[in-house]
């Protein structure tokens, strides 16, 4: 099959699904809408598989399927083609996006069956898929930005999907506005790159930039990549713009799984993996990224420990895991970042869907304090959740182990890494194990704490099947990137590394002894295992201990529990001054000068028009006369 046609089908299937459902948005038939939307997603997934197969058939050094449909913008030096490229990076991305996306569409059919506006929901979901595909397939920054904004829009629409609840509507608004700040950075970065290098095409940039000498902090590339990183912090919820993501949990749970865990929030990571050749020319940026990523991972993990809302816990966990990815990007481990992105997509989508299943079973109850002992009510959800849990805390041989271990190893050993980053990463790993175990204990194990009026029940097959598939992938998904020290002995190659090698920037390998690698690995696993055990003992064996610890920590605990008062800080020191300042401008400058100027302009125009408006007297024949006079004038000019 023709590649251009294949890519077109890949892109258009969700768009058509969106149009189909969008035009009949008021329908309440969740099954029809869901079938169409899921079908569209499945078609896209199928196309992705075909493209991946074709890509495999190509020789290793030229694994690129590029196509462009038309020249989109052609102004002066700026030539933006509506072009798409499928290479090793985007192939993984589209497989993940459409694969996980299809599963989540399927899950949604069951989850949204009794909603008020299911058709609208599925239309948005399809639109999101379309935009996400645009984002990952675009062969230049502008196309990516189109998708970037598109997914932002869909995120807004879906977070505020239950907009009749003003809190949820404002959560959507918050997500949107926070993203706008990041997008401004993205735009500035894009402009800077174009200003400096005259192109926005990834391939061209990768070809030009390594030849450009870069000067310290104020170099063009550093500034540009920092700006792009600001965009990435917005989209991928890093410090300082992470605040929207926990609030975004107001949306339907499958949306949280798809957009706010598996795909959209990883766009920033994808961007930097895509631009790895550019990024390695700006070591200072990488340093910033690494530290921001590591501290985000740590801070989010600490907050996660104190949360009670099941989705909030998962949200902070997502922020934390995204921090890991940025840590990997920052230390130059692009393969590891992409790897973690993929495995995270599996297990975090799984856990969100699992939490959706739990919430569904508990009749919209989200507080873990009112759960417990769900193991016997929700066997499938429990089993799959356990897979996700083991994956995220990094237990071998689950998916998360390999990717997280790779990141920690690179943080320790890479020329950009250092022991501080590594230490932060390991502590975060411990915290992750702690709060995830805490979540398991409070939700599934122990005694049930909900009232007798609730009768939890296992979800229908449309919801169970995606869980099972994702559960399987949470187990085996990591096996594509088995490190040499483990795989080398038994002859299992690191498939992923080989796969991504031609398209990501390669750093000089630092020689590290296998023993050290084994040691680091063992250490982090041990930390995770111990903190998991501690959590188990706290929440199952002696439930009183956490309270006493919290009491002992006092103010610090409160601070963590309230997310370090970051929202309050933003409110008090950024938003309020802005609002007050704007009010002052409005009341003084606007009213006194600008308004008067516009009134004056209006008065002038209407004054001048009072003479001309006699022409427009409603007499049809006068109009005909003006027409005739106009023709006379034109003909005179033409003839003379």
């Amino acid at each position: 099959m023709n590649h251009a046609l294949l890519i077109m089908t890949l892109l258009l299937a969700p768009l058509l699904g969106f149009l189909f459902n969008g035009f009949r948005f008021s329908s309440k038939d969740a099954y029809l809408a869901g079938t169409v939307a899921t079908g569209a997603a499945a078609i896209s997934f199928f196309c992705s598989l075909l493209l991946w197969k074709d890509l495999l058939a190509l020789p290793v050094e030229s694994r690129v399927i590029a196509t462009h449909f038309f020249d989109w913008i052609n102004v002066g030096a700026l030539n933006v083609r509506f072009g798409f490229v499928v290479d090793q990076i985007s192939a993984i991305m589209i497989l993940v996006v459409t694969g996980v996306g299809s599963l989540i569409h399927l899950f949604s059919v069951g989850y949204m069956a009794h909603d008020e506006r299911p058709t609208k929901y599925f239309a948005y979901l399809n639109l999101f898929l379309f935009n996400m595909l645009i984002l990952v397939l675009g062969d230049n920054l502008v196309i990516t930005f189109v998708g970037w904004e598109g997914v932002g829009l869909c995120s807004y629409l879906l977070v505020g999907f239950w907009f009749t609840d003003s809190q949820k509507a404002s959560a959507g608004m918050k997500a949107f506005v926070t993203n706008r700040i990041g997008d401004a950075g993205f735009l500035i970065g894009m402009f800077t790159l174009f200003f400096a290098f005259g192109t926005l095409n990834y391939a061209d940039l990768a070809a030009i930039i390594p030849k450009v000498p870069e000067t310290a902090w104020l170099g063009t590339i550093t500034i540009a990549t920092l700006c792009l990183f600001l965009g990435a912090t917005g989209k991928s919820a890093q410090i300082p713009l992470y605040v929207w993501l926990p609030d975004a949990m107001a949306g339907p749970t499958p949306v949280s799984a798809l957009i706010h865990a598996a795909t959209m929030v990883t766009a920033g990571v994808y961007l930097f993996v895509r631009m790895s050749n550019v990024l390695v020319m700006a070591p200072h940026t990488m340093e910033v990224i690494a530290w921001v990523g590591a501290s985000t991972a740590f801070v989010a993990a600490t907050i996660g420990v104190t949360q009670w809302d099941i989705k909030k816990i998962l949200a902070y966990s997502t922020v934390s895991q995204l921090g890991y990815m940025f840590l990997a990007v920052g230390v130059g481990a692009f393969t590891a970042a992409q790897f973690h992105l993929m495995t995270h997509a599996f297990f975090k989508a799984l856990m969100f869907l699992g939490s959706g299943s739990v919430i569904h079973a508990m009749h919209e109850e989200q507080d873990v304090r009112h759960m417990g002992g769900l193991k016997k009510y929700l066997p499938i959800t429990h089993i799959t959740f356990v897979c996700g849990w083991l994956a995220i805390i990094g237990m071998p041989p689950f998916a998360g182990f390999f990717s997280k271990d790779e990141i920690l190893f690179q943080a320790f050993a890479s020329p950009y890494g250092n022991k501080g980053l590594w230490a932060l990463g390991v502590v975060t790993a411990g915290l992750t194990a702690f709060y995830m175990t805490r979540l398991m204990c409070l939700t599934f194990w122990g005694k049930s704490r909900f009232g007798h009026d609730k009768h939890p029940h296992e979800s229908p097959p449309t919801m169970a099947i995606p869980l099972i598939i994702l559960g399987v992938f949470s187990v085996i998904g990591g096996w594509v990137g088995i490190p040499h020290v483990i795989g080398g002995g038994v002859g299992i190659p690191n498939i992923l590394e080989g796969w991504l090698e031609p398209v990501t920037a390669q750093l000089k390998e630092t020689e590290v002894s296998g023993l050290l690698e084994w040691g680091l690995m063992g250490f982090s696993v041990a930390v995770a295992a111990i903190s998991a055990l501690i959590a188990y003992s706290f929440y199952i064996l002696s439930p009183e201990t956490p309270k006493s610890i919290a009491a002992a920590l006092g103010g610090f605990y409160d601070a963590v529990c309230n997310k370090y008062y970051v929202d309050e800080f933003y409110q008090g020191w950024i938003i309020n001054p802005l609002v007050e300042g704007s009010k002052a401008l409005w009341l003084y400058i606007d009213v006194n000068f600008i308004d008067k100027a516009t009134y004056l302009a209006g008065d002038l125009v209407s004054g001048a028009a009072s003479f001309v408006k006699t022409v427009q007297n409603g007499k049809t024949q006068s109009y005909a006369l003006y027409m005739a006079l106009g023709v006379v004038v034109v003909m005179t000019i033409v003839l003379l």
Partner: protein
Amino acid sequence: MLSIETFLHVGLAHYIFLSGILFSFGMIAVLMRKNVIVMLMGVELMLNAVNLSFIAFSKESGNLNGHIMVFFVMTIAAAEAGVGLALAVAIYKKFHEVNIRFFEHLRG
């Protein structure tokens, strides 16, 4: 220049002149008459004047495209007359007169 021959040898120019006169008459009717139906008649007159020049040109150039145009113009004119008269009937039903000034209500 203006010899007797110019007048006697009837050619394209004569017909175009005639057509121009008829056209201006039609236009005056559209611009000046108050009765909507007479204005419509003026439009018909204008269209017919144009038809005349089409036919004259067609004869002069020897191809039939002018005839085709006239054919189309006639169809359009018939349609226009139908719509115009229907509007006039609608106006008459409301005001019991068909004066163009009732269209001033359209000024809003």
